[in-house]
């Protein structure tokens, strides 16, 4: 269930766009902030609120990397693997981190603490290699530094 607080925020967002559907991305951020992911029920509910067909909401959720359609581990750590980062060792770093946490890219750790991922360019090429942990950028990484960042996650 989308809470009444979130619902009224979504309604406020819808006011700001000439067409209600324009508010879909902000609305999805809001519901994801509340539940941690966007469940099928949430998709249906949101579609109802916004006057969309559920399938239209599903399309957007599955298109963007930052929306999740199932429960997520507590943290997301994604290493950029585009060309500049790769030239500076990003792919090797990612493989070493997989080993360090004991889980492959895309597979949550057993304790549900974290999942590794890779990322297309995040515009931080000058500080390659880099990784994003939840909403924060970590740049000019080496293995030890990266490990300590991950180890510090709750």
């Amino acid at each position, binding site marked *: 269930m989308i809470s009444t607080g979130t619902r009224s925020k979504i309604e406020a967002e819808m006011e700001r766009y000439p067409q209600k559907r324009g508010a879909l991305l902000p609305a999805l951020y809001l519901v994801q902030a509340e539940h941690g992911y966007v469940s*099928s029920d949430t*998709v*249906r509910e949101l579609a109802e609120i916004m006057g969309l*067909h*559920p*399938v*239209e909401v*599903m*399309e957007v959720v*599955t*298109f963007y990397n930052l929306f999740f359609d199932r429960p997520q581990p507590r943290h997301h750590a994604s290493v950029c693997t585009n060309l500049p980062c790769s030239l500076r060792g990003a792919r090797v770093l990612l493989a070493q981190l997989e080993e360090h946490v004991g889980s492959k890219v895309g597979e949550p750790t057993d304790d549900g603490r974290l999942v590794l991922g890779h990322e297309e360019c995040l515009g931080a090429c000058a500080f390659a290699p880099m990784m994003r942990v939840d909403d924060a950028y970590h740049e000019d990484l080496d293995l030890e530094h990266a490990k300590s960042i991950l180890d510090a996650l709750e």
Partner: protein
Amino acid sequence: MRITIDGREIEAREGATIFDAAGAAGIDIPVLCHDPRLDPVGVCRLCVVDVGERVLAAACVRRCEPGMEVRTNTSDIEADRAVLTELLMSEQPADHEADRRERAFGDNALLACARRYDAWGDSLPRGGGRADDTSSSVIHVDHQACILCDRCIRACDELQNNEVIGRTGKGHDSRIAFDLDVPMGQSTCVSCGECAAVCPTGALVDVAIGPELRPRDELEAVDSVCPYCGVGCALTYHVDRERNAIVFAEGRESPGNRQRLCVKGRYGWDYAAHPQRLRVPLIRRDDAYPKGALSKDVRGEHDGRRKPGGIVDYDEVLPAFREATWDEALDLVAERLSTIRDRDGPDALAGFGSAKCSNEEAYLFQKLVRACFGTNNVDHCTRLCHASSVAALLEGIGSGAVTTTYGDIANAGAALLAGTNTTANHPVAATFFKEARKRGTKLIVVDPRREAIAEHADHYCRIKPGTDVAFYNAMMQVIIEEELGDRAFIEERTENYDALATLVADYPPERAGAICGVEPDDIRAVARAFGSADSAIVFWGMGISQHVYGTNNARCLIALALLTGNIGKAGAGLHPLRGQNNVQGASDAGLIPMVYPDYQSVEDPAIREKFESAWGRELSPQRGLTVVEIAHAALEGSVKGMYIMGENPFLSDPNVNKVRKALSNLDFLVVQDIFLTETAEFADVILPASSYMEKLGTYTNTDRRVQIGRPVLEMPGEARLDWEVVCDVSTRMGFPMDYASPSEIFDEFAGLTNAYATLSHDNLGAVGKLWPNPDPERDDGPVVLFDDAFPTENGRAKFVPAEWTAARELPDDDYPFVLNTGRLLEHWHTGVMTRRTRVLDAIAPEAFVAMHPDDGSANGLSDGDNVTVESRRGSVTLRLRLTTRECRGAVFMPIHFREAAANLLTLDELDPDGKIPEFKFCAVRVSAAG
């Protein structure tokens, strides 16, 4: 504007795309993502052409500009297309020979490109790994063959307006997905098949129903019409003559359906080839008397289960009959019917025709009963569907047909859908309703059940069952009080307004709201939406008509349209959605006891004289009995002999236990049908008839469109054409009938009417014609009727006010629920045809009773439980479904299932004017089955 394509000067219409202009000039541009029925999206780029710019342009989206010079086939362009094809082919399943689409329809557009460019994707790494989805009963999904052209998504959204398909993921992982990415068979897909019809590859393909396709050009394409509902969709059957089989059906362009079909039309035709078809005449064995039901289901010993071999176990029934020759059977029929006629008088005979039969068959059958039997005891299933609507319409506006087509909703400001489960019962009409809504028509849905169409409504009012009159009276009260009516229309074109105004003044929304269980302000809102629209159409279905006050219900809807001036202009009118494919036509042809063809009264001496001289016989001056009255008369013994052609009253009529006694009580019954129906178990003689697929005839749809259905199959065994059988019986009974063809019968019928007078098989053309039609050679016929006068004596329409009365059998402590009955999307009437089609039976195999979840938990019942539903007349055991579509206090049962026949429970009380039985309201109790 002038443009040049490949050196040819061409005249292009304003706004045309290059693809359109080229097509009109006969220049072929290959396309994959484009289909002229869909909004172009320009994603596949196969249609690229050179317009003299830096890059190539996509012809399917690029509009023509004056003086444009286009090249469609330079070597650069062809090279470009070849590369594209190579890329697409590298992702296709490797085995092109096994391509599903080529084997089902023979029209894989991508493989056609591969052949054209000899590009098979072999120069690139081959893609793979995308799975199949085989969960749907009708469509096989092969994600690997999908090229993401978006055609299916647009077909589902823009044509069928179902919005089931979308895309999931992105980049290389993109796939089409159903609903929230569930398997197709578990999604809200209604199996209309439109997506498979438009798919250009092997990604979405019909699961084979007919035999596997041989080369497509060895098939014969036969233009015909769907045999099921009153929408009357135009379609083409692709027929394998050599194997006497339909291979597949395809929607055809017509003003009515614009190539759309529903699951029944597209996939429901294989019943005609079912092994249980009757092949020889059958005569009841001497040791099978006294007559009575033969099978367990029909005896009433239901166990709620399906027979393993099909819906009817022939082994239970056939031993009571022996095979006979046609001569023997027809002689026996003629002799027995003549004996009864001569001994007990003509009125001891009666006939039921069918709304599934053609106009020609209906006309001949009523002529047989009237002129040869000598009685007006002839009726058909219109009595069970819109008889009350027709009674109200004839009384109010002088004509029983629709005043405008369903497609006219595109021009309507508002549309009221009253008591109609349109998405199930008139599926293709419903697609146009949803489409109109998207373009701004306000949809108002009023129904105790929250039908699927309610999801699309601007206003949905859930009224309590049986309170329609109070609701519409209140709407009119608001419209009058707030002066939303059309004064000029009322003054110039109607009469009896004051009586209406006086009566509805007693129905303020506060009072009606309490009766209907609706907030008074909701009634006001709906009245304002309807009353303030520039034009509005009223559509209604069985929820209005199938009541003991069905005529009153319809009177209110007619008054509502008159009050707001909504008849006789575009986007306005009255449209009772007719159920059967030919219920309009069968009624037009006089298959009703009070009137000859074209609603000419049997009680009017001048009219009678006209028919007496046309038919050369003296005719009965008394109106005949209606369907349920005939059953009652059979029970009392005053009707002794019956001829039933294509009807199945055992299941279709209310109170089955009484019908069983009535049918057993007949001295003589002949049943002419394509299968052993429940009714046939009571027959003395059973005649094997022709199915729709085997005969030529005309059928009149809900819009008044008269269309030709054509034979596509040979009849099985010794089965014969129905019209020939009727002629033979008549001739043997001393009233010779002799026609060379159905078209000759049509001419005789048309000549006795005004509505059909100008029509003939020859001028109906590819898509039929609307009646009345002053100039069928040139004109499709009038969509909107009565723009200046009504066909009444003084040219005015009449308000007929109606008081609300409570239903006949109200729920009480013993029987606390209201039982409502109706249809499912996949099935038709008594299931004789649909339950014998593979797809329809697979999707909806079993009976159920639906109840609101809160009522379920209040009674300790859960979804899927086996329950017994009992009324004062009978009981059935079946599965419970809990759904919020039902309202509290009411349950719903589909009527199609002999092993759990809803009509065992229903009430055989009749509407006083329309003589329609009460199918939608009786009291029942529901309890867990032992």
